[in-house]
């Protein structure tokens, strides 16, 4: 196989130096197309596979099965078994193989079924992917993308439900993305593949069926900045991934209560875009962090620390956090619901902050 990247310089650049590409989408008109998070992610995969023949997808059941969550359905037929590569249940081996292939010039996308399973490959992610560049004195960069499902909400209990992306944000040498919208599901993969270093993409399992519309020419997006999903003046809700929808719903409830909430979607969890959330805190002076991870040693703790370090005198109230209860995820629906951040809890936290 020859190495060839299709240049796409003729089209306008949108952000982060990434070229536009609407080829992965089916629509040929400028009308927005109805789609889902799952389909948007699939379109992003298709675009990457079409544009760069160094790209291949590897993981458990990504081929014939169509992906554990159906994301890669149809790609085997389109791109063949060399590039849509089913693996044995050997997380350490196939993640490490992705690292080796990336060092040798390929652009692998490795899919891990869930973040809980990624722990079987944590050694490869931490001790090799994140470390090789520095340990080799700048010689061995690892242009690898690892995608995995995270989060709860589907009653799949204590070994398939956790939000461990915060652990990964602890590690220098990797980047961590959490697409929460259709646009980001469609637009974050290509720039992640252009990154010379390893990028982990966390897809919240509850998002795959999210329906919506996407511009027909939906393009790769910037992956370095947080986004303000709802502008507001009274309180800042900081979140990402699966809890963005809950934060927006809470903001709606708060609005009817006369509280104008601003909602920040972090999008990129490492490196954090401090400027966006600090700017918001400087405007609203009150903040609630919503994080589906456990509270202790969490990403929410890191954000809280950064706010107190860099914007302490902007705060008019203590930082509030809404996190998951510190238990392994229980199976029954009512207990799962009680474990996770919910809209009512976010609303209550915001009300405390503005009181």
């Amino acid at each position, binding site marked *: 196989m020859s190495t060839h990247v299709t240049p796409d310089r003729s089209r306008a650049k949108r952000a982060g130096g990434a070229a536009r590409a609407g080829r992965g989408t089916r629509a040929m008109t400028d009308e927005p197309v109805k789609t889902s998070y799952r389909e948007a992610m699939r379109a992003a995969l298709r675009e990457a596979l079409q544009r760069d023949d160094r790209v291949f997808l590897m993981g458990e059941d990504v081929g014939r099965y169509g992906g554990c969550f159906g994301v890669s359905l149809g790609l085997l037929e389109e791109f063949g078994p060399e590039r849509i590569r089913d693996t044995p249940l050997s997380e*350490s081996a*196939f993640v490490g193989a992705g690292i*080796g292939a990336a060092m040798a010039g390929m652009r692998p996308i490795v899919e891990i079924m869930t973040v809980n399973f990624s722990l079987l490959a944590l050694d490869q992610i931490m001790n090799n992917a994140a470390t090789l560049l520095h340990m080799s*004195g700048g010689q061995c960069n690892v242009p690898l993308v690892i995608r995995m499902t995270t989060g709860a909400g589907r009653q799949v209990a204590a070994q398939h439900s956790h939000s461990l992306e915060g652990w990964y944000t602890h590690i220098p040498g990797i980047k961590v993305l959490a697409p929460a919208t259709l646009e980001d599901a469609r637009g974050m993969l290509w720039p992640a593949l252009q990154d010379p270093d390893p990028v982990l993409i966390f897809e919240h399992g509850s998002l795959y069926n999210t329906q919506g519309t996407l511009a027909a020419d939906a393009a790769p997006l910037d992956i370095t900045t947080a986004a303000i999903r709802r502008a507001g003046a009274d309180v800042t809700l900081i979140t990402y991934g699966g809890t963005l929808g809950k934060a927006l719903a809470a903001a709606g409830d708060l609005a009817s209560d006369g509280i104008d909430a601003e909602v920040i979607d972090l999008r990129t969890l490492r490196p954090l875009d401090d400027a966006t959330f600090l700017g918001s805190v400087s405007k609203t002076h009150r903040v609630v962090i919503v994080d589906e991870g456990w509270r202790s040693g969490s990403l929410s703790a890191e954000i809280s620390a950064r706010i107190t370090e860099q914007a302490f005198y902007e705060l008019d109230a203590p930082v509030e956090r809404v996190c998951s209860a510190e238990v392994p995820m229980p199976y029954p629906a009512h207990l799962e619901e009680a474990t996770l951040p919910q809209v009512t809890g976010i609303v209550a936290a915001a009300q405390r902050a503005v009181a």
Partner: protein
Amino acid sequence: MTGPGGFAPETPAAAAHRSELLREMLLIRRFEEKCVELYSAGEIRGFVHLYIGEEAVAVGVNQALTPEDNVVSTYREHGHALVRGIPVEAVMAEMYGKTTGCSRGRGGSMHLFDAGRRFYGGNAIVGGGLPLSVGLALAGKMRGDQRITACFFGAGAAAEGEFHECLNLAALWDLPVLFCCENNRYAMGTALEREHAQTDLALRAASYGMTAWPVDGMDVLSVENAARRAAEAIRAGGGPHFLELRTYRFRAHSMYDPDRYRDKAEVARWRERDPIVVFTTRLREIGELSDDELASIEEKLAAQIEESITAARAAPAEPVTDLTKFVYSPVPS
């Protein structure tokens, strides 16, 4: 190429080849003996794992590799790095943690790298290099190049999950990997028999559907012969091969290790099979090596190593301001 018996045909080329094998083994031995001195003197620090006693393995396997092939190694990798052509100066400077080191001093003894020579480390997680070798070989196969990937690891790695995952995956995907298991009989302080229910490691590899066999790792010509056979088969499309290279380390696990777990008599018995002493004796017996020739080799190596030390001492240390450089790749301007 020479057979396992080793010494026919008696051509000048064969004799020169054997002399080179000896020189390479001596380079590793003398380099590491100097490392012991420098470590004891406090000039180099960290974990230093010596290869002394195992030199025939690195030198023999390397004969079957081309400069285009990939190598993945372990934390006991000074020998592999040197035979792959990483300059002595760069390896020594790495021991000193200087910017002229082969990893800019960032890695030290356990993390020697040279991407240009396709030497992908110095991996200090037991079994951690095996998945990398599978990926390097997969990339080569997908791109249609002719490289093979030689992956060195110890007998201890055969107890790790990665051993099983990677042998399975390499065989399943028919990848050009030469698995080189350096069985020195100990996983740090734990003897092979105390660690493995099945101590025949080649047998275990064969169960994954690849050709595997044990090799006398104390005899450089046996290792060379086996590696050439395996590499040839891999290059011909025969998929992964596995060599269990039976060897012994004469020194402790690392410079920290008091070596309380081995019988002194056992060490002495293996020392009688010292790959360098035995090979030197055989070359002398057949008249291929005179005292003068040996002295000349030793003298040149000593000078080369001394020069590398002088250069490493004088080399600059990395400025602290560059501490976080290479955590991420530089952003293209």
